[in-house]
């Protein structure tokens, strides 16, 4: 017995010392290694400098699985189209309508555009892992995408830490360019505040000033901020808010949340849901007969503040007559929208969604800013984007405000089309709300952009 213990003691010591020695050896060795793995580190004064390479890489990080997968798939199509156009292939799309434009159709700064893709799974963790892979392994100079504000905010702060520009895809929460704004994050899409501001007058005209609203809200940053914005708007009209209920993202079955609405005395249901969640909750609300109800002597109404054609497609018949707001719709008649719809349609056989539009535009705007700055060096590109005024991208004259990196442009109030002429003609534009009506002071949400150099 003693013998064994001795053996054990001896072996433990041996083990410890040899492990420590091996560890120390490897640590010394490792001190020198990392640099040899960073491509072109000797010449780089900023992360992922394309340097003398003949190409530049962009990363497209979209939800390919989960509640927002449909939007993600459409975003990816738009990104691929944007890369084509930037490289001078295809008909050029909005390259021809962007004003002022520095784009030449020969890549970015003469370098061919390549891209890598990733799946955010609509989870912050997975999205950041995927973004890190793009940055650390693939060496992208910019990444974009996303269909959830929670994810957008998470990867935007990563962008700031890493010093790589993030051009937000579809994200509608006020926080993205509000309290969680970052110097390295830019948003072309509109936000919940603007939805509220645009919807307000229309709601007043259509439904009057004496309504009782019931909110069902996706339980994360976007839902919270949209609920708050819409609540402020409707209460400003004189409406009463009966209740606000948070529902988990990707719940699938909303019946337990909709049943209480029936007996709540509310006559308006506001669905702060997006993607498949909205399709499910709206479908169930209609199945429960909410829209045929009369409450307080008024017709029961449903409002979906953030609308998209993809969702309308999913919800089918139920969408008819329902009001909401949207960033962009393919039926717009301006030259930019027409050019984009045409090349997207030729490529894929159907019109693009608003998610596709914003991602396409963001890619082009980044490329254009690089051309304007004459470099990929992020601080210079950021300065080129800040306070950039442009037109011809589908929403009229647009400003990329420097204080919070939010775009200001016209917002559309839409209604589910009662008599669609085609399977894609699902949204009817009620009003193109001018930019001046949806502008606000950058300081109302607080937040700080942070430094240019990281």
């Amino acid at each position, binding site marked *: 017995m003693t013998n064994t213990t001795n*053996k*054990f003691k*001896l*072996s433990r010591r*041996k*083990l410890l010392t*040899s*492990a420590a020695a*091996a*560890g120390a050896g*490897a*640590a010394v*060795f*490792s001190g020198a*290694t*990392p640099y040899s*793995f960073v491509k072109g580190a000797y010449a780089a004064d900023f992360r992922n400098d394309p340097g003398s390479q003949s190409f530049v890489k962009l990363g497209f990080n979209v939800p*390919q*699985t989960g509640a927002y997968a449909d939007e993600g798939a459409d975003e990816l199509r738009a990104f691929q189209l944007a890369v084509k156009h930037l490289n001078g292939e295809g008909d050029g799309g909005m390259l021809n309508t962007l004003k002022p434009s520095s784009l030449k159709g020969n890549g970015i700064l003469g370098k061919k555009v390549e*891209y*890598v*893709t*990733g*799946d955010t799974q609509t*989870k*912050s*963790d*997975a999205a*950041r*892992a*995927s973004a*890190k*892979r793009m940055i*650390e*392994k693939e060496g992208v100079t910019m990444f974009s995408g996303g269909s959830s*504000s*929670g994810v957008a*905010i*998470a990867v935007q*702060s*990563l962008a*700031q*830490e890493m010093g790589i520009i993030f051009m937000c895809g579809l994200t509608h929460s006020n926080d993205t360019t509000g309290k*969680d704004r970052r110097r390295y994050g830019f948003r072309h899409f509109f936000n919940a505040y603007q939805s509220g501001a645009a919807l307000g007058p229309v709601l007043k005209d259509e439904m009057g000033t004496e309504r009782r609203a019931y909110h069902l809200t996706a*339980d*994360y*940053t976007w839902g919270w901020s949209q609920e708050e914005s819409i609540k402020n708007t409707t209460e400003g009209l004189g409406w009463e808010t009966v209740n606000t209920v*948070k529902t*988990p*993202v990707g719940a699938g079955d909303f019946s337990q949340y909709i049943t209480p609405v029936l007996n709540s005395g509310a006559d308006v249901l506001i669905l702060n849901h997006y993607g498949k969640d909205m399709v499910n909750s709206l479908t169930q609300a209609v199945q429960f007969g909410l829209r045929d109800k009369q409450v307080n002597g008024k017709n029961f109404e449903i409002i979906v503040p953030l609308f998209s054609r993809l969702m309308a497609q999913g919800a089918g018949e139920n969408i008819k007559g329902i009001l909401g707001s949207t960033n962009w719709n393919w039926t717009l008649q301006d030259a930019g929208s027409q050019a984009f719809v045409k090349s997207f349609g030729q490529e894929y056989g159907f019109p693009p969604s608003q998610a596709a539009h914003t991602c396409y535009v963001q890619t082009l705007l980044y490329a254009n800013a690089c051309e304007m700055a004459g470099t990929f060096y992020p601080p210079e590109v950021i300065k080129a984007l800040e306070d950039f005024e442009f037109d011809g991208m589908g929403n009229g004259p647009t400003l990329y405000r420097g204080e919070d990196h939010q775009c200001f442009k016209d917002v559309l109030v839409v209604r589910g089309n009662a008599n669609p002429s085609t399977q894609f003609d699902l949204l009817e534009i009620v009003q193109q709300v001018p930019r001046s009506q949806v502008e606000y002071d950058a300081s109302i949400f607080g937040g*700080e952009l*942070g*430094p240019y150099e*990281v």
Partner: protein
Amino acid sequence: MITATPRKDLILMAIFTIAVLTMPIWLAPIGASYPDLLQRFAIFGIFAIGFNILFGLTGYLSFGHAAFLGVGSYTAVWSFKLLSMSVVPAIIFGVITSGLFAVVIGYISLRRSGIYFSILTLAFAQMSYNLAYSVLTPITNGETGLQLALDDPRSLDNLVGVAATEGIPPTNFFGIEMSGYSGFYFCAVLMIIGFYISMRIFRSPFGMMLKAVKSNSNRMSYTGLNMRPYTLTAFVISGMYAGLAGSLMAVTDPLAGAERMQWTASGEVVLMTILGGVGTLIGPVIGAGVIKYFENIFSAINENVLQGIFSFLPEFLQDGVVAVLGLFVGEGWHLTLGLLFMLIVIFLPGGLVEGFSRIIDRIKNRSKNGEADPVGSAKVQPGE
């Protein structure tokens, strides 16, 4: 199985240490040698090693280990927010909190065994997930996830007068930034230490006792032995490993989200352990590596990449091959992983480690053909 002797353990430990620390080199050819993925290998390696102490030794299948991972993460991020950007308090508090949490959950769940134990742990983890997701939003920030902010108090840092930076300061270990390769080596060293501790537990009388619980718990109780203190200790130790892994996730990337506690995350560590080899020392680490590799590299292969790989084929063949293979990469990586998992469970119930030892045995047998079978003499149990 290769018989364990102190000498062989020493060799295993040395090989493991060298292999882990040189990962950036030998993983480069398969495209896995970038800091974030390497960090994940090490972190989930720790998670799986810890899980294996419970599942591999006692046979208690916990389906709720992700809860400890999440608790570790949240604690670490709060430590960054309130105390200091130094990783030392974050890790210490992360491990302690998840350990305490494990005592509570373990105390209740271990009153049952088998499937009932699994369901209890699953229920607890799902409860924690839903709490983090909704009720505890002030602490966890719900779906959005807990993040650092510029105006966090960081009282310890302020106390010692760390110079304020313009942005959010990075997490650090006595001044070394915990991102990139330094973050990986930090996690790797902790994994090596964790591996060593797990090895000691496997070889100790305590480990023997746990193995006895696994092989026949009825007999154990008939001999008048109360197993619960042993299983509870194993449960808490493995919960602390998970807490360490969780806090390291926050160290390398200061953000904590509720999805870390979801049952899928708990299931993942079960897959890792089974894939690598339950009850083996090295298996869970290999399993963790394989799964993380699939998740990060396979999911990123898109049609473009495939077209590039198969561009040597004639066009009609190329399109066909790409169309078929396209189902298994990109968003279809789960499918590939599922197939791999099925193959392993059916043909190699002992996981990848069994596969390796079969190969080694075959080679040995071929070279020793005709000699007496040495297996019989090698069946001595370790530590007896």
